[in-house]
């Protein structure tokens, strides 16, 4: 390995997002724990505190790029700033968290650098001379191992696939703050709007019954609600596809761009289990999946899987419940 590995940190409103430390874990694996060539870069309008926090936590040299036009993310400014930085550094890999910010600029950076671009990396194979990158296709039904062939490779790390790097108490990385005041030309970043529904019963429910596109039609939501009624203190959640179809409001959405939940029981009904959804299930004591597609990715995560047509199985389940718990013969 001759060039640097650069991790681009992600931060929101003065806080370092955990995906940054996930990306650092990935970078550490890439350099086989030899972090001498590893650097982290933070871009923003006042990066001193964040750069300091990152260098303390990771022990890795951190560069803070201050740009007065970056009180909010802006792709034009990020790209021009990174290109300017690369005039000083020989970079071999750039590691970016795969978030709505990350995938907004990563492919553009690749085009500008003539680099290879591999997105949503879930793992790295370091057995051979050159590392290869593992990513999913077809909603998680297939995995591929990808090898770049250009001098520079841009990778984005799949949130939830990497353990965030743990604190390095022994040493603190150097912090270097530089100023690059490049203005955006065509894109003006205006504001970051908060979600309408912040307090949500989903975040506090012990039992979540969740519907996916596999329920087939809006009317079948009644099955989900009937199933939820078997459990006291339960809430109904869903995958993004159900919201996109207009069957449930987005406040029920569980996933990267929706709610993150940690229930005692998560029942995934008609959910394929794509990582954008399942990474919203932060911790669940038990996951039960009901799906009629045995190759659905959800079965890799479920503690208990049932390969059945939900429209047949749920009424049966409710019927059996009534038999088991309510048939008290005098």
């Amino acid at each position, binding site marked *: 390995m001759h060039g640097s590995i650069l991790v681009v940190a992600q931060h929101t409103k003065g806080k370092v997002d955990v995906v940054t430390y996930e990306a650092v874990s990935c970078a550490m694996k890439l350099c086989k724990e030899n972090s001498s060539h590893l650097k982290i870069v933070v871009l923003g309008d006042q990066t001193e505190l964040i750069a300091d926090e990152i260098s303390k936590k990771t022990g890795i040299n951190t560069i803070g790029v201050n740009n007065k036009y970056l009180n*909010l993310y802006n*792709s*034009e400014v990020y790209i021009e700033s990174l290109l300017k930085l690369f005039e000083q550094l020989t970079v071999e890999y750039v590691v970016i968290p795969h*978030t709505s910010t990350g*995938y*907004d600029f990563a*492919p*553009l950076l*690749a*085009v500008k650098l003539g680099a290879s*671009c591999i*997105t*949503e990396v879930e793992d790295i194979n370091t057995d051979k001379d050159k590392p*290869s990158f593992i990513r999913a*296709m*077809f*909603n998680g039904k*297939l*995995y*591929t*191992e*990808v090898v*770049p*062939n250009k001098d520079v490779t841009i990778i984005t790390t799949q949130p939830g696939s990497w353990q965030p790097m743990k604190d390095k108490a022994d040493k603190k990385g150097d912090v270097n703050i530089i100023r690059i005041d490049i203005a955006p*030309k*065509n*894109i*003006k970043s*205006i504001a*970051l*709007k908060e979600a309408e*529904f912040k307090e949500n019963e989903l975040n506090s429910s012990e*039992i979540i019954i969740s519907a996916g596109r596999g329920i087939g039609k809006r009317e079948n939501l009644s099955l989900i609600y009937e199933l939820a009624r078997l*459990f006291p203190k339960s809430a109904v959640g869903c995958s*993004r596809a159900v*919201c996109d179809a207009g069957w449930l409001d987005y406040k029920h959405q569980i996933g*990267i*761009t*929706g709610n993150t939940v940690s229930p*005692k*029981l998560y029942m995934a009904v008609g959910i394929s289990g794509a990582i954008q959804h399942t990474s919203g299930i932060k911790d669940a004591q*038990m996951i*039960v999946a009901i799906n009629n*597609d*045995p*190759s659905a*990715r959800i079965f*890799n*995560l*479920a503690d*208990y*899987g*049932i*390969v*059945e047509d939900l429209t*047949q199985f749920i009424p*049966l*389940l409710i019927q*059996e419940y009534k038999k088991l*718990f309510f048939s008290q013969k005098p």
Partner: protein
Amino acid sequence: MKILVCVKQAYVPSSNILLDKDPPRIHYNTGGFKINSYDEYGIEEALRIKESASKIDEHTYVHAISVGPDRVETVIKRAMEMGADEGIHIQCNASEELSPYQVAYLIASYAKDKQYDIVITGVMSDDGMYMQTGTMIAGLIGYPHISSVVLQELRKDHSLYIEAEHDGRRRQTFEVKLPCVLTVQSGINKPRYPSLSNVLRVKKQKILKIQATDIGIPEAREAIVKMFLPNIKQKGVILDGTPMEKATKLLKLLHEKSLI
């Protein structure tokens, strides 16, 4: 105003993916090809921009483009039947083996001297899920771009007000000057059905055909060296038996854990 909407025909099999191991290759079942769901939102959004532009007295044309073999004509026609004015087909065999960069290069090569005001793509495809192509098209043409768009509004000064999805159910808002590229997120709109008048028009209409080899397909910058099906992890148990038996087993399990 001219809008180019990029449409992919994605491979969306309903059950297992069949694989050749060496060299790694997918067995494509012709019945598994469908219009990329994210691009349906793209077509619809293009048509909505056309409709709002006509209110401020602007002639707007929507062109639909796709890269692939003969079968992708279906998705170009779908876009036209929804209301796109013209269709462009970059003919290319085995397009399912192209990387996002290669597809972006082909589309950008076609589009760059055509003065499109807006280029729209879905944020990703249902099969590859790379989330790169739209952004790369922007980089190759030299247009600014915004990805993951959930709302757009055309302003009289020919700029766009955009809301883009951000994590944790937030939205970042932008103003972008035309020309630009937008990649749209699912749920941005409700795609319309083809109309009868458009269907009849499309029956008589020609689609512009361009050979990808005439443009020149660039070399891929990455290679897939292995494909594999995910392992079912050991910790999970697939319940067996009749549906009734599975139901009973499940209820007993839940009851044992005091969940029900």
